[in-house]
């Protein structure tokens, strides 16, 4: 298939002040990426950046080649990048566009729902509380649910969740 170059997509990174243009494709990010290693290069942060530079929006957000959702946000690539490219920030933007295209793993949506309903992504189960006790960790404080809901409403998160 032919891929279209989306110039608007490319420009978005510029307006967000992302450091995309500094990338010289050295591969420091991909070489050290744990997910790239596990997937034998199927997931490759360098290729996502390359597609962003080339303006290949479709490839990233529709075809998921590579699949940006596989990024574990460990920030290793950001730490090692010699050009100071904000890879994970750029990926966040790509992920947002994926959501708009309806292309996202259900688990992410489920997690969003959990935050909306219970105020946290991973609810405190008795097992967790007991394990923390055993390890001598302090009691976890939970944030006020209503406050979180206000935040989610004001930032437009809830609307977004309903629209997708």
């Amino acid at each position, binding site marked *: 298939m032919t891929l279209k170059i989306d110039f608007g997509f490319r420009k978005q990174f510029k307006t967000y002040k992302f450091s995309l243009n*500094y990338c*010289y*494709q*050295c*591969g*420091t*990010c*991909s*070489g*050290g990426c744990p997910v*790239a*290693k596990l997937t*034998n*290069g199927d997931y*490759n942060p*360098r*290729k996502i950046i390359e597609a962003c530079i080339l303006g290949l929006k479709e490839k990233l957000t529709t075809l998921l080649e590579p699949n940006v959702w596989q990024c574990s946000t460990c920030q290793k690539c950001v730490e*090692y*990048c*010699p*050009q*100071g490219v904000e890879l994970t920030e750029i990926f966040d933007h790509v992920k947002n566009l994926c959501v708009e295209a309806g292309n996202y793993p259900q688990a992410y949506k489920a997690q969003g729902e959990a935050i909306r309903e219970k105020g946290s992504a991973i609810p405190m189960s008795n097992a967790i509380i007991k394990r923390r006790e055993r390890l001598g960790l302090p009691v976890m404080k939970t944030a006020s649910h209503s406050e979180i809901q206000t935040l989610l409403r004001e930032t437009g998160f809830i609307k977004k969740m309903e629209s997708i």
Partner: protein
Amino acid sequence: MKIGLFVCHCGFNIAAVLDIEKIMEHFKTKDDIVVLDDSYLCSDSGIKTLQETIQEENIDRVVIAACTFKLHGSMFRDALEEIGIHKDLVVFANIREQNSWVHRYETKLATQKAIEQIEAMVEYVKLVEPTVRAKVPVTQRALVIGGGIAGIHASLSIADAGFEVILVERESTVGGHMALFDKTFPTLDCSICILGPIMKEVNDHPNITLLTLSEVVDVDGFIGNFKVKVKSKPKYVDEEKCVGCFDICADACPVEIPGRFFPIKAIDVKFPQAVPLIPVIDQDYCTGCGACEIACDREAIIYEDTEKMRVFDIGAIIVATGFKDFDPTGLREYSYDDNPDVITALEMERMLNPDGPTKGKVVVPSTGLAPKEIAFALCVGSRNKNINREYCSGVCCLYSIKHAILIKERTPEVNITIYYNDIRANTKGGEEFYNRAREDYGIKFVKGALSMVQPSNKNSPVKILAENTLEHEMVERECDLVVLATGQDPPEGTDTLAKILNVSKDQYGFLLESHLKIRPSQSTLKGVYLAGCIQGPKDIPQSITQAESAAAKIISILNKDELEIDVVKAQLDESKCDLCRLCLDVCDFQAIKIEDKKITLNSANCTGCGACTAMCPSGALYIPGFSNQQINAQIHSFMSTKSQKPMIIAFLCNWCSYSGADLAGTSKIQYPTNARVIHVMCSAMVNPAWVVKALLSGADGVLIAGCYEQDCHYKTGFKKTKDRFESIIEILNELDIDLDRVKLESVSAAEGKKFAEIIDSFSKELAKK
């Protein structure tokens, strides 16, 4: 008085942005002004037209609206002096670096700014009083700092031309980095075979005085007349008596100085080909056991040797202090700190050297065995924005290829892979060298930077991670040896040296050239030249080329019996002086004295910073070209139109900030058109009265920009500015003027971007008011 105004188009550089016709129209109608434009004023025909027009029209004062005066200023002044126009009567409106290049999309505003810039210069030139040009004798002796390949070449070139050279070297031998190498790229000729003979020549040359273990500690004076103080550390060995057999004393010495790849004794030469071939005692390690004294049959050991200070009169200086190998210690991804089998390129150089620690055998440091798999990581400490080294090292591709070839020649069975971003074989014969490595030697090249070096559990000691980006393949490979191709850093002590010499540094700490293209070997100070890596990363041929170019420039200075110098020195109008004595304390150079109830000036001591003139309440003290009247004329001219709001008057010091503003121009960094620049020699000469005058006559903001305190050309100038800025604040407080309308900043000659940002943010802040 008839003023000639000459506007240069500079091809499209100025004319594509500024409306030259409108500028010409504006000045055509004025009395006593003759206007002329030319597409290239600096060309041969441009100069000719300039000279002819001046003579035909009987013009006696000249305003040239063109590039920065720092570029072609002296060329124009020399050309006009030929036809009898005094140099002081030729002034410049900087409409390229500080206008068309930085306001590319603002034709209308930029044209108006240009008209105002020119107008201010017209008003200024009317008030210029020609000074008597001083001629000073030239000391026909050069100083070369640093005895590496660049310093050696520069010294020999000058000495061969018949002038005396003082060559100062910090180490105990000349030769620098090159003396540590086995072979050189791309020809693979033996490094010491081509360097050794000229090291000896430097030592033996009748015109060269070689001072090793020595450093320049103080420099005073100016072009043609520097006074240089050199400190020589004690060697504890009598150079007259020692015959350089060095193994007798070194063998007797029980103390070994640790160092993975440069092991020597507490009394030793740095390497066997050292010049002068005199061992020295390292005081930090010597236990004073006396073994060497007993062993030496020449009785050359002198334990009570002391430090020596010498002062030399010098005409011109070359700085050739080279570079420091980048230290990868902090970069965790390479595990250099905790893995002995990860080495730097310089350590590889030593391993390959027949005189090195392994006698030329390449081994795995942890086992001492021959390696089977070697990886080279390129761009370590270069092309990296994260650690402020955006520049390409310029050498690490080619020396890594050289290393790989040398290893292959000695042990063909070893596997070598070079992990690169881009191969930059940009030297004569470089690309051929690269091809030979691939075709004839079977060295593998992988496009993909080395991401990480990990200790491995199996038999091979290290594992490397990377991506082969051309084949989209993840690389995970075990190696016995990883070589980090480190880049070049400024050498240690460059900050201090820059301060001593009064020259500027670039953003990475290398010394800054006066102009990258047309004055690549001149520093920012007249009479001080740069050679080799101190100006930026270089290979050997480039270092030598620059050394010879610097030497040629110096020979042309030393060839003259006397030099005409720009005399910017304080003058006194006795009739105005009311003996308040405020100037006495502010001068740090003993240039002002009081004798018989009269102020007297010592011109020889005066540096021309003008700090005293800013203190003088009566206007009796002044610097020619920067008197109250002359500066006020510019302020008045800018404010009489006040075409923009907010309007900023910017006082920029000659050495750092004005050059920084010019750099914003050459880098084409865009910023708003709101600032009008007034050139001063030092920020310390900015009189609070000028600031108040500017604000009261309508300026919305005043910017004073000078050097960084520690880099000040006049040593204490910016400090005085800072103190004076406090009094300016007090004055404004009393006058009930908003204090946010004045700003004091340091902008170095390398900070074009910072200058642009300051103007941008300052005009935004002022616009809010």
